[in-house]
């Protein structure tokens, strides 16, 4: 890349009449920075304000939106975690999201592997059926889903939530992994077969490790999608004890209008945002890479 581009640019520098004057260059660079810094501020300020406010008492919040908290105490966090039940919502969310992620990754990998590398009657039809699941709004399914879960005795339970999460995350997972398994060289599978590996061990020992990058990308997207999921729990998981974080937050926010523990509300927001931000900061490069992979297909 570099080698090919330095050639033409050398030529270009040698012909100064095509280059813009440096003053204009600098002005444009400064203008770009200004716009970008402005946008960054629009993004960061609300977050920073939320973080600061989470340390204030409710009285301080009412006094002024700007004033710094008088002391950094964590009483709001304790209140949010225990009184408002954010702690138990947090645990529920971790259980549901972790289980759903494991299951959907395994099932999704299996399904996309078979669809991508085996020829059989109905292969294409199943693939398109999966794609259709990506396009239809989940709202269309929500009412019958409610009764399906009730018939299985899974309504308002964590396993019911897990199963639903898995089913609705499956199309995306299959769609994404399909292209990864398709791109793996056929020779590898043949080599494994010659070495006496059956289909099962070929998949688990050879193919799955080779699709590691694809799996990681899908995992991150699924984590974000499921951690942030709101509609499914709101409609299908109405038992307060089984609330997940997103619906617990909504519930808490609508109550806070009356009982006015705003400090705890802000603390709850920080508690919810913190884990995803940590995941984001750790996997930042991977994630930004996945964005382009996932949508350029």
């Amino acid at each position, binding site marked *: 890349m570099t080698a090919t581009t330095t050639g033409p640019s050398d030529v270009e520098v040698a012909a100064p009449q095509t280059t813009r004057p440096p003053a204009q260059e600098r002005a444009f660079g400064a203008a770009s920075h200004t716009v970008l810094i402005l946008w960054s501020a629009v993004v960061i300020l609300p977050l920073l304000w939320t973080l600061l406010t989470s340390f204030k008492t409710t009285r301080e919040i009412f006094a002024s939106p700007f004033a710094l908290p008088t002391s950094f105490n964590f009483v709001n966090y304790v209140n949010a975690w225990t009184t408002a039940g954010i702690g138990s919502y947090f645990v529920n969310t971790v259980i549901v999201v972790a289980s759903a992620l494991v299951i959907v990754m395994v099932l999704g990998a299996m399904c996309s592997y078979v669809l991508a590398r085996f020829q059989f009657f109905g292969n294409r039809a199943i693939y398109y059926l999966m794609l259709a*699941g990506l*396009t239809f709004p989940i*709202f*269309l399914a929500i009412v019958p889903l409610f009764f399906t879960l009730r018939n299985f005795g899974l309504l308002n339970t964590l396993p019911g939530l897990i199963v639903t999460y898995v089913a609705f995350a499956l199309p995306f997972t*299959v769609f994404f992994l399909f292209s990864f398994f398709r791109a793996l060289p056929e020779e590898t599978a043949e080599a494994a*077969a010659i070495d006496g590996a059956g289909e099962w061990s070929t998949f688990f020992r050879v193919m799955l490790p080779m699709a590691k990058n694809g799996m990681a990308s899908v995992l991150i997207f699924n984590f974000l999608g499921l951690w942030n999921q709101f509609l499914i729990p709101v409609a299908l998981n109405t038992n307060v004890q089984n609330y997940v974080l997103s619906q617990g937050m909504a519930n808490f926010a609508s109550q806070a209008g009356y009982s006015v523990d705003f400090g705890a*509300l802000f603390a709850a927001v920080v508690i919810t945002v913190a884990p995803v931000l940590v995941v984001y900061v750790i996997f930042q490069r991977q994630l930004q*890479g996945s964005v382009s992979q996932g949508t350029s297909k």
Partner: protein
Amino acid sequence: MTAVVTPLRADGASVGPARHRRRRLTFDRVSFVTVFLGVPLALYLIFVVSPFIQACYYAMTDWSGFTDTQNFVGLANFGKILDDDIFLKALRNNILLALVLPAVTLVLSFALANLVTVSGTSRGQTRGLKGSGFYRTVSFFPYVIPAIVIGIMWSQIYDPSNGLLNGILTSLGFDGARSFPWLGDERTAMVATIFVIVWSMVGFYMVLFVAAIKGIPAELFEAARIDGAGRLRTALRITLPLVRDQVQTAWIYLGILALDAFVYMAALNPGGGPDNSTLVMSQQLLTTAFRKGQFGLACAMGVVLAVVTLAFAACVFLANRLLGGKEVAR
């Protein structure tokens, strides 16, 4: 395709039983395909496909959910919906969102992506701004925050008396903003809501565009510059046509999001906003189903929502095709 060709080659080469075995229906192979395809597919059929199909049927009944009897009423539910002023208002709000939200988000994210990628010095190689990684990372932040939390956060920021926005505005001297209810005023509720969604989405599409722009060969930008094209011209005439596939994908994603929009609305104005100015179909659907127990009617609303969504996606595809999408893009 490859899978069809390879076994033929393998058969022709007749290397030995190992290769032949792969094609035959051995127990190993059959059990593998059955389990690997069967389990996920069963789950998918029971919990995704079947509810969708049931919904289309229930949409034509007067089912109230908790009775066993349901009468087939044909298209009566749809007639009822299209006579319902509140639902029509919600439909209009959704369509407004689907038109405005993608446009604003894409213009903003495309502009920002251009600034971080190609707005560095035009001397020598095309390069990005210094610190572009920082801008990208920061802008992407909101995408990872749960939408409901974004909504809650912003409803506090918009708070008439203790919110950040009015705090900033009054300290800048706009006394009219002292206790202006951004979400409680019919004129501003929708705009304020759209801003929140844009805020949460711009970073994602900016990163998407940055990746796409980086995939464009640098020679193209060099050539445009030597030909004397300005930055704006280069962005609109060179870059934009080359990332049109991404624009199409983004437009569809954002449109689908706008036609849903449930989470944001539920957090910012759970009741539909002043004079239903931010009410969307999805809210009305859930109310109809789980508050009023009119499940048949709610399913009909779901069908309308699905039809509008598919029509929207089709429109975007068609528009891209009519504007000469494929030839330029590939």
